[in-house]
C-alpha cells in the first residue's frame, strides 16, 4: 500500500516536471526566452514525447525496452512533425517547438486519466 502510494507520488512528480519542461520548451519560441540553452531543449525532443508513447503502448517492461522505444518513438514524433511541415503549405507558422510539447502534454494527460487496462489485444 505504501509502495503504491510512493509510486503514485512519483508519477505525479514526473508529470509535473514534464509539464514544466514542456512549457519551458514552448517558451523558447517567445523572443525574450530565446537565451535558454539548447542543451536543455534538445534532450526534450529526444526523450520526452517518445516516453509517453512507450507508456501508452506498454513498451516499458525493461530498462532496455524503455530506452529503445523512448528514443524510437521520440524520433518518429519529431520527424513526423517536421515532415508534415514540409508538405503542408503554411504549417511552418506552427513551430515544432510548440507542436511537439503540446502533443506531449496530450499524451501525458491520456496516460494520467486513461491508464491503459491490463492485457493486450491480440488476434489470437
Amino acid at each position, binding site marked *: 500500500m505504501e509502495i503504491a502510494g510512493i509510486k503514485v507520488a512519483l508519477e505525479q512528480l514526473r508529470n509535473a516536471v514534464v509539464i514544466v519542461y514542456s512549457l519551458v520548451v514552448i517558451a523558447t519560441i517567445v523572443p525574450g526566452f530565446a537565451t535558454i540553452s539548447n542543451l536543455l531543449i534538445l534532450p526534450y525532443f529526444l526523450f520526452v514525447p517518445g516516453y509517453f508513447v512507450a507508456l501508452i*503502448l506498454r513498451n516499458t517492461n525493461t530498462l532496455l525496452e524503455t530506452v529503445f522505444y523512448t528514443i524510437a518513438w521520440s524520433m518518429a514524433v519529431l520527424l513526423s512533425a517536421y*515532415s508534415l511541415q514540409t508538405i503542408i503549405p503554411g504549417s511552418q507558422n506552427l513551430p515544432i517547438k510548440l507542436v511537439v510539447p503540446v502533443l506531449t502534454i496530450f499524451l501525458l494527460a491520456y496516460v494520467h486519466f486513461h491508464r491503459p487496462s491490463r492485457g493486450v489485444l491480440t488476434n*489470437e
Partner: protein
Amino acid sequence: MRRIHHIPLLGLISGLMLIMMLASANPAHAQPTSVSVGLSAVVTEQIQPLYDVYGGNTNQVNISISGSTFFVSGTSFTMTTLLKPTMTGNLNATSTVSPPSGGEYITTITPTPGTLSFNVTFSGHESGSSFLWRYLAAMPYVAFSGVSIPYLQYYITIPSGTVLSQVYDGRGGTLPLSYVTGCRSEAGQEKCNVLSSAESGLLIYQSSSFLPASVAITVAALAVVALAALNLFAQGRQLLGTFSRQLKLGLRTIVGAIPFLGSRKGFRFRNLFQPRKLLALFILCALVMVALGAVGGPDPRVKAYVIAGDSTQTNAIQSELQALVPGGNVQVLTPTQDYTDFDVMSSVGQFNIIVFSNYTPAEISQVSGFILPSLGNVPIIMVDNTAVDNSTNKVIATLYPDQVLPVGNAAALTGQEQNALRLQLSLTQRTNILGVSLSNGEFKVLLAAEAVLSMVLVLLGWAYLGSLTSESRTTTDLSHLVMLIGAGLFVFFFSETIYVVTSSILAVPLSLHAVNSDAHDVTAIGLLGFGGGSTPRLAAGFLGVLIGAVGAEGGLRVKKADFALIAGVALILLANPLYIGQYLYQGILLLFPLGNYAFGTAFSNSLSLKGFIYGFGAALGGDASPVYLLSAGKILFFAGLIPLAYLKRMGRTTTVLALLLVALMIGDGGVRVGEMTPDKTVIAVLPGLVAGFAFAAVILGLAAVEKYVRGNWKSRA
C-alpha cells in the same frame, strides 16, 4: 455474444456504401464551340476503345491545317507533335518532317508563295491502353510555332454508346466531363469537341455495359460481405462449414489425382513455410541465380549504346559495327529506350562501346547529365565529327582520354578506323569462365530463367519476412522488433547484392528502374514482356509477405470472415462506377503503370505521401547533396518492417487491414531491389525505420479503435 461483435463493422460498411452513393461524378455541361476565322487547325482522333483486363492499341489521328496564306508571317511555319505525322493531302503547300528529337517530330509547312489559301492534312497514330475493362485514350500533343493559329480545334470520334468516365489535363489534373462536349452522331460514331485544357491529356472510356456490370459485381461483393456477416451466426457458420467441407473434399480429390502432389505421403507443403526453411530457400535461389550466371554469362553479343540524332544514322552505325563483329552479333541500344539508368547499365558491364555521332545540342543536353559521369564504365568511347556542336566531344576527350576512339564518321568508318575498333573490341570483350560460348537463342533462355528466378528470389525473401510474424509469440516485443529489422536489412541488401552480381556476370541488368516498358531487349525481365519488371516484383513482394505471414506454422490467423469482409469491401469500392471507384482506379494505375499514366486525386495524394516520406529522409541527411538521392520506395520497405512487428498485437480486423498495408509497403520496396542502387539503400534505412514508427502509430491507433469498439460491445452484452 460472438455475433454482436461484428455489428459495428456492418455499420461501417453501410456508411461506406452511403458515401459511395453520394459521391457521384460531375455532371456534364454543354459548352459552345469556337468558329474558325483566318488560319485554323483541326485535330481529330478516331478512338477505337478496347475493353480488356490489360492491353493496348493505337488510334488514328488526322490533322488538318488550312487558311489564308496572308496569315503566315514568314515563308513557313512548324508543327511539333509526339506522333509521327504522314502527309495525306496538300493544296498550295509542302511539308517536311524532321527526324525525331527527344521524342518530338517537327514538321515544317511551307505555303506556296503567290497563292491565296492553302490546305495540308496529316495522319498519325496515338496509343491507347485498356486496363480493368476501361479504356485510356491519350490526346495528341500538337503545337505550332512561326504562325498564330487562333482556332486549334480538337475532336474525337467514338463508337456510339461509349461512355466517357473521366477527363484529365496534360498534367494529370482532373477536369469535368464537360470538357468533351457538343457530341453529334455521324454514321454509328459520335463526334465530340475537346476543349483546350484537355489537350495532350487523357480521356477514360467505359462501355455502356460497364455500369450494369459494376452493379452486378457490387451485388456479388455485397453477397460476400453478407456471407462474412453470416459467419457470425451459428446457423450461418454451420452452412459455411458444410460448404467449406465439401469444397475441401473436392480439392483433396483433385490433388490426389495429381501424381506428384497426391502420392507423396508425409509431405506437407505448409511445412516449407517456416522462417528458417524460407530463409534457406531464399539463399538457395540466390546461389542458383549466381551459379547459372557464372556458367552461362556473359552475353555473347557486342552491345553498343548509340547517341546519333536520328534512326537513319543509328542504323548505319549498327551496320558498320555488325560488319566488324563475327556473325554480326551486335545489339544497339539508344537513349529512347533508357538513359536515366545508364549508370546502372554501364556499371554491370552492359556496354562494350558507346558512340557519339550527329547528336543535336537538345538531345545531348537531355542525356549528358546521366551519361557523361558514367562513361568510365564503358571500355570504348567512339566520337565522330558529324555533330554540329562538338563541344561535348572535347569534354569527353578531356575526361576519358584513354578510352576515346576518335573517328571521322561513325556511320562510314575508314579501313584504318575499322582496324583500330576491331582490335579494341577484341581486347575488351569479356569471355565465359568455362570458355563456353552460347548462341543468342540459348542465352535468351538463360536470361528468361534468371528473370523468373529474380522474381522467385523476391517472393521467398519477402515470404521469410512475413513468416517471422509467427515467432512473435515466443519472443518479447523488443526482441521481435530488432529481429525483424535485422532480417529486413539482410533480405534487402542480400537481394540487391544478388541482383547486382548476377547482372554483372550476365552483362545484362536483370531489371531497371526507368526503362521504357515496351523495351524487351534491355533487361532480362524485359524478355518476359515486363520492361523494367516493377509490376511483377511488386506482386512477388506483396504475395510473399502475405504467404509468409499467413502460411507459416503459427502464423497469423486470418479469419475467413475478416478476410471476406475486407475483400468484399475492396470489391465494392473497385466496382463502384462513381467517384470512389474512379479514385481507386487511379490508385491501381499508379501501382500498375501501363505507360506512365499518373493522374487525378490519387496521384496528387501519392505525391503528398511521397513528400511525407522524403521529409524523414531530408531530416536525416538524405538531401545533403544532389548525388545523395533518396528513394521513397526503399524508405517504404524499411518503414513496413516496424508495423509488421506489431501485427500480433492488433485486433482481428485491423490485423488483416494492417497486413495488406504492410505487404504493399514492403512489396513496393521489392520493386526497388531491381534498381540496383545500393547507395540509395544505405540512405533509406534510418529514415525508413523512423517513418515506420509513424506508420505503426497510425495502425496501432486503428487497432485501439477496434479494441474500443469490440470491448464496448462486449461490455454491453
